[in-house]
């Protein structure tokens, strides 16, 4: 199946999810609830071939992520290969899971940028969010080592109700650590985050205050560039997810499944595996990658909407998660007939006292077992 009205341009951004194992158990993780089912079955040579094929198509940006990529024993060789192929290499890491001596080796292998996830400016809150008592001090040591070894440091902070009051402290800490950029990302609600939404979603007032603090910093200081990502639950139009399905971005998961975005295999589509097909065949010819290209798949209100070229109907995963139909408009849009699902989640979370579920293997296996039990009834 080919899209009717859109030429296919090559992927520019490739994300390798080397493993879904992670020493942290963050409650806001976007990984799928059933990640315990994902097997790490890609060999080093499989990753090399994927990188070569994607590079030959014209891809230039490489993200190395997970789970926690530091847990993959082939990480240094993968970075080295990526650098030889002339990718711009980004390591997206928690900073936990490997000896700190790996940092100079990563630099030597040609790594350009570290995106380090930091949850809080204090140890207590970090432990609360990650369920790992060593996380805070390991992260501080990792950040310091990155700067000492001349690596560009981007600090990514995911914002939830647990840390939104700390934004000012987090900005100051990022500056002290010498971060080149700080990304303050209000989380998007997928996977574990959606499961835990009632415990995580901040209020509109908290969000406004966080934004004001960020703007105050931006106006008064320019040492570090600060990005602020607004949570789409408080918006009335959806994000242009992935810059359009199959337009720019390609993720390969630890089993070799190729996805147009990190969470796309929550959708009822058959995603191809790089162990069976070339990256080029997957990108250009697979049914799954062509499924949401163009606009012939759209229903109302998207089909006749004059903003459809701008946001492509929003996020397919969010549409499916909240409406059970992946062809619906992203319900974040207030033109969607399901917009009330989003607004009622916002309302509900305000009064909820739900405790978040940690993202770990046991909880994942319990969720899988419960699903099976339900489907057998």
């Amino acid at each position: 199946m080919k899209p009717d009205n859109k030429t296919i341009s090559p992927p520019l951004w490739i994300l390798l999810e080397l493993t879904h194992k992670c020493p942290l158990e963050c409650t806001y993780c976007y990984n799928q609830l059933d990640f315990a089912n994902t097997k790490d079955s890609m060999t080093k040579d499989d990753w090399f071939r994927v990188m070569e094929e994607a590079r030959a198509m014209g891809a230039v940006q490489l993200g190395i992520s997970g789970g926690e990529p530091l847990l993959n024993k082939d990480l240094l060789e993968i970075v080295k290969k990526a650098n030889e192929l002339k990718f711009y290499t980004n390591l997206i890491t928690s900073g936990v899971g490997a000896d700190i001596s790996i940092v100079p080796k990563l630099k030597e292998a040609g790594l350009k940028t570290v995106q380090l996830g930091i949850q809080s400016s204090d140890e207590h809150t970090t432990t609360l969010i990650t369920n790992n008592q060593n996380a805070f001090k390991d992260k501080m040591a990792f950040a310091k080592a990155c700067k000492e070894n001349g690596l560009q440091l981007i600090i990514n902070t995911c914002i939830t109700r647990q840390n939104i009051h700390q934004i000012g402290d987090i900005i100051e800490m990022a500056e002290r650590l010498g971060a080149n950029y700080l990304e303050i990302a209000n989380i998007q609600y997928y996977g574990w985050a959606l499961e835990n939404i009632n415990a995580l979603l901040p209020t509109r007032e908290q969000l406004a205050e966080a934004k004001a603090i960020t703007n105050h910093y931006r106006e008064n200081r320019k040492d570090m560039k600060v990005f602020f990502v607004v949570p789409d639950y408080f918006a009335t139009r959806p994000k242009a997810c992935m810059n359009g399905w199959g337009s720019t971005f390609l993720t390969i998961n630890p089993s070799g499944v190729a996805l147009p975005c990190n969470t796309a295999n929550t959708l009822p589509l058959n995603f191809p595996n790089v162990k069976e097909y070339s990256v080029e065949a997957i990108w250009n010819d697979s049914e799954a990658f062509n499924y949401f290209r163009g606009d012939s798949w759209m229903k109302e209100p998207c089909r006749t909407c004059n903003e459809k070229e701008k946001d492509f109907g929003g996020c397919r995963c969010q549409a499916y998660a909240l409406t059970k139909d992946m062809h619906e408009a992203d319900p974040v849009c207030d033109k969607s007939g399901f917009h009330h699902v989003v607004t009622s989640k916002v309302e509900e979370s305000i009064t909820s006292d739900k405790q978040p579920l940690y993202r770990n293997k046991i909880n994942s296996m319990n969720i899988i077992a419960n699903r099976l039990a339900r489907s057998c009834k």
Partner: protein
Amino acid sequence: MQREKFLVVNSHFQLQYEEKQSCYVLLYPEGMVQLSFSAGEIMSLCDGKNSCDSIITALVEKFSNQAIESDVIEFLDEAMSRNWIIYHEAR
């Protein structure tokens, strides 16, 4: 712009010619700038062995055009303000 100082691409960026895009691109975290033909010619000479003056000399010779001097200086000023290039000795 200190015209006699050697210039080099900031090591946090990555400059390369991309066949698929038929131009030089400058890569940075999660992003890319496609450089115009003249910008690519100038940036590719920022290799730590050239200064503003020597880049002008090289390009005047290559394109047999005396009139490019102010354009080169303007571009290098802009590139420096965006942190794309730095003085080599400053590293």
